[in-house]
């Protein structure tokens, strides 16, 4: 039947999982704040964004339950990110190649 979702099994995440995820998030926050006091050049941005992305992924997957959602929801959760990458990527390309013509 097309109108019924295939996975209506109601997964309930345990309190323990949430606490563990919270601890992970606090650790990651501590790491990123600590690194910001150290000058590692270009890696400051790389580490900051990587840590942020891990935190975001963890919030989305566990707190927001995305891990247990169907593929259609995944599609609509990820597609905006692809669009943003496009918007940011192309406008930066324009800006950069204006300043430094190829």
């Amino acid at each position, binding site marked *: 039947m*097309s*109108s019924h979702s295939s996975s209506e099994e109601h997964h309930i995440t345990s309190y323990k999982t949430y606490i563990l995820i919270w601890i992970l998030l606090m650790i990651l926050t501590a790491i990123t704040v600590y690194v910001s006091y150290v000058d590692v050049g270009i890696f400051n941005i790389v580490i900051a964004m990587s840590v942020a992305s891990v935190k975001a992924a963890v919030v989305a997957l566990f707190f927001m339950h995305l891990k247990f959602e169907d593929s259609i929801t995944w599609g609509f959760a990820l597609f905006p990110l692809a*669009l943003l990458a496009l*918007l940011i990527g*192309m*406008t930066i390309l*324009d800006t950069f190649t204006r300043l430094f*013509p*190829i």
Partner: protein
Amino acid sequence: MANNTIAEHVYVPFLEEKKGLLSWLVTTDHKKIGILYLISISIFFTLGGIIALLMRFELLTPVADFVDPHTYNVLFTLHGSMMVFFFIVPGLAASFGNFLIPLMIGAPDVAFPKLNIGSWWIYLIGTVIVLIALLQPADTGWTFYTPYSATTDADVVLITFGVFVLGFSSILTGLNFIVTIHKMRAPGMTWHRLPLFIWASYATAILQLLATPVVGITLLLLIAERTLGVGFFDPDKGGDPVLFQNFFWFYSHPAVYIMIIPAMGVISEIIPVFARKPIFGYKAIAYSSLGIAFISFLVWAHHMFTAGISEVAATIFSFLTFLVAIPTAIKVFNWTATLYKGSIQLHSAMLYALGFLFLFAIGGLTGIFLGALASDIHLHDTYFVVAHMHYVMVGGTVMGFLGALHFWYPKWFGKMFNETVAKIAWFLIFIGFNVTFFPQFFLGVQGMPRRYATYPEEFESLMALSTYGSWILAVGLLLMTINLISGLFSKEKAPQNPYGSLSLEWQVPSPPPHENFEEIPHVTDWTYGYGKKS
């Protein structure tokens, strides 16, 4: 057959369920909400059209003798804003999408009926805000480019706020339709059995959902520029006026596909019925809707080739723009192939569909001229662009809209209109439209710029011709309107399925009852089995 003990439903057409203006304003019936949108957008289309007639009247002569140039700027701002934001973006999706989607998929209503009527109210409030602000007056053009929009006296804050509100209506409608199509299809209605109008509506809804917020933030930034002195678009503060254009067109290019894709869906519905043939290349057309929607996100800077973007960016965007021709051409070829060896019936709805094929082909092809970087340098901001956009938006979307109006009229209103008058009106519209806009291609190539009240004398004869065309077009539209409205008052009731159509909306009475289906249907086949023996 086992007799069920459920009481016999007495058929009450949805139009007669609950009477009174107040019940209409708070209805959650998608068929009534579609009518609310239909009436609103038609009123704004008429107003926008009258403004266009005034503009063309001024352009009869090379001098600004009817209105002064500043007033002319106000007129084209009004015309563009009303047509784009009030009529064509909500357009087919909000009116016919609302009416047809639940019926075509076999559902009793959309996923969120209260959100649906909320969307209409948001739309109405948005239009009122924008209209009040535009009449202050505003002369920025509907595109509100910085730096002028950041510095001019016009009440840009109010206009942009109103457009922001309108954007919400579009987003929420898109959201509603996506959820409806994903989750509320009748049993057996697999994706590959869906009518092509649904595929088109789905692709459109994705654009509405995800592209619109970007213009939302753009407008917020413009408001911040005017109120807080933020300088993202101001070169004096380190900003970039072209950034406004980048953000603006990131939405507005997908927006033009919001305008055209539903019309393409309508054509896919009309042609098989009146050619008595299955649609050629169903999957190709279905996926091409998605393809067009996806590619539409990749091409926005082709509106900015002369704005000061880098050559690298311009070249890339020009190449990407050509890509969109592929799924578009697939559709046009498939529609044509559907006609081939069909038993063509020239009903008025079919005339609009055929008109669409011809006019949209011209519009689409001239888009290629503009997408090519080298030619666009000369054609940008000339009448060539004006002609191109009207060929796709009027020759395309409006033809599709009017075709939909004539095709589903019996289903939606339960009445029939005068078919002969409809054909005459179509003829006047078709001729009038071409006389108005075809000369504009030549004007553009010869260098006539857009948005000017005065022009060199050598353009006068083509300009005058264009104006005469606008009068023929206006008469045709008027005749068509009178015909359709008087049909509502005729005594004759429409049959359930006057054209022998196979999709679900034609299997319920005309007009449908409030709940659409007495029992949710079980779907067993695709919707285009015309000409086959049952």
